[in-house]
């Protein structure tokens, strides 16, 4: 996919939209930053490559303008979920979809360079990343530095778009392989699972970056994690309160998490915060044959019910 084509499409979209949300280079060559393009000149700075990690669809619900947005496959599910939940007016949004071959995890790349200053980053082909630091040039395999979510990506081609920039890509994964990690953890003993979560959440500093980055956390300043009345959780940084916060996030995302991975990307402590939601998603698939953010006409399972639930059985004591 050539960035030239993307720039053209953005310039075209500007004729109708007040703003186009896209990516441009960030403070160094490894980072990209979201940019709000309003003039054709600004479109010339737009980039798209494996550095473009952010989920730009997140801006849409609070944006009151006619907008166009650049999305990867995973990010496009956010738009479909917004449509299902009536959080955006689809008529006011132009979706510029890009079939995606994967993005890098900035943390993984930095670790591989030994946290050297970055002088340049190039992507000679879709399997290679070349990073230049004061210590020289380093070639990395994309597979080694890709974001975790790309390893389980089922939708590399956007599920919704008005313009597709590039050729559609088929995922080489199945639902089973994509959810292998969830199934593996689920198969462990209760004690092991308890120990796993205690160890992971022990590092949580309750900064709430995971929540703030989440496109489906739309309550903004009314989050119950911060409400004093009722007081769901105190300010204490003890295991109970940390766990409770994560349960709030998970249960409020029940059957809504589009698995964009923004929560994990934003977490400074490397906590697998997406795991709980993916477990719920797996149950939603099993119980209601529902996957968040895939079909606009679907209804999130927690927003509805069937009188006769086919898969829910009465529990016996």
């Amino acid at each position, binding site marked *: 996919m050539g960035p030239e084509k993307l720039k053209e499409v953005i310039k075209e979209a500007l004729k109708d939209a007040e703003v186009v949300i896209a990516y441009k280079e960030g403070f160094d060559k490894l980072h990209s930053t979201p940019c709000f393009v309003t003039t054709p000149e600004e479109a010339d700075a737009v980039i798209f490559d494996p550095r473009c990690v952010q989920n730009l669809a997140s801006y849409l619900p609070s944006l009151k303008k006619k907008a166009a947005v650049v999305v990867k496959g995973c990010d496009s599910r956010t738009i479909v979920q917004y449509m299902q939940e009536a959080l955006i007016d689809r008529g006011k949004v132009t979706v510029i979809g890009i079939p995606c071959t994967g993005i890098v995890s900035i943390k993984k790349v930095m670790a591989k360079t030994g946290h050297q200053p970055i002088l340049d980053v190039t992507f000679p082909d879709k399997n290679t990343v070349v990073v230049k630091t004061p210590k020289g040039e380093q070639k990395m395999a994309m597979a080694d530095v890709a974001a975790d979510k790309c390893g389980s990506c089922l939708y590399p081609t956007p599920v919704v778009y008005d313009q597709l920039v590039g050729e559609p890509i088929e995922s080489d994964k199945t639902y089973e392989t994509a959810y292998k990690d969830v199934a593996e*953890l*689920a198969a462990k003993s*209760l*004690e*092991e*699972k*308890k*120990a*796993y*979560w205690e160890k992971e959440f022990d590092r949580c500093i309750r900064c709430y970056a995971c929540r703030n980055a989440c496109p489906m956390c739309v309550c903004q300043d009314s989050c119950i994690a911060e409400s004093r009345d009722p007081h*769901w959780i*105190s300010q*204490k940084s*003890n*295991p*109970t*309160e940390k*766990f*409770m916060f994560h*349960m*709030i996030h*998970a*249960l409020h995302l*029940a*059957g809504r998490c589009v698995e964009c991975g923004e929560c994990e990307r934003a977490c400074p402590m490397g906590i697998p915060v997406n795991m*709980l939601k993916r*477990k*719920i998603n797996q*149950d*939603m698939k099993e*119980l209601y044959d529902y996957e968040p953010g895939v079909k606009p006409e679907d209804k999130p*399972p*927690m927003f509805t*019910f*069937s*009188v006769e*639930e086919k898969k*829910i059985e*009465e*529990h016996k*004591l």
Partner: protein
Amino acid sequence: MSEIAPKELRIVGFLCNWCSYGGADTAGVSRFRQPTDLRVIRVPCSGRVDPLFIVKSLLNGADGVLVSGCHPRDCHYTDGNFYARRRLEMLKRLLPFLGIDEKRFHYTWISASEGARWQKTVTDFTTQVHKLGPLHSTTEAQIGS
């Protein structure tokens, strides 16, 4: 109630005002013997039971949680228990993933006339939780507020 250990555990029961609370009342009026571990919280409808109520109870000291509402199709508000069923089933499946035995949580439907059914449910559930033992045995001090 010989099968129940003498020491009480903490079990929280969220009962819908229209059916299960009435069912528990019927059991009481009929003088059916029941274990005394359960503390009842009366809610307008099982649909009012946020799954977070259950999580918060379990994290903050409860050893078991029981939710009971009207039978499907008998909801005073038509469909509260249908929504509840989906949410509670979701939580029931999530608990073991967190390392909490799903047997500590039970949800069911009991009508106001089913005093005997209430007696059986509360007895069986209490027995089940007693078999698992206290959830917070060593961590009383860590529970915090």
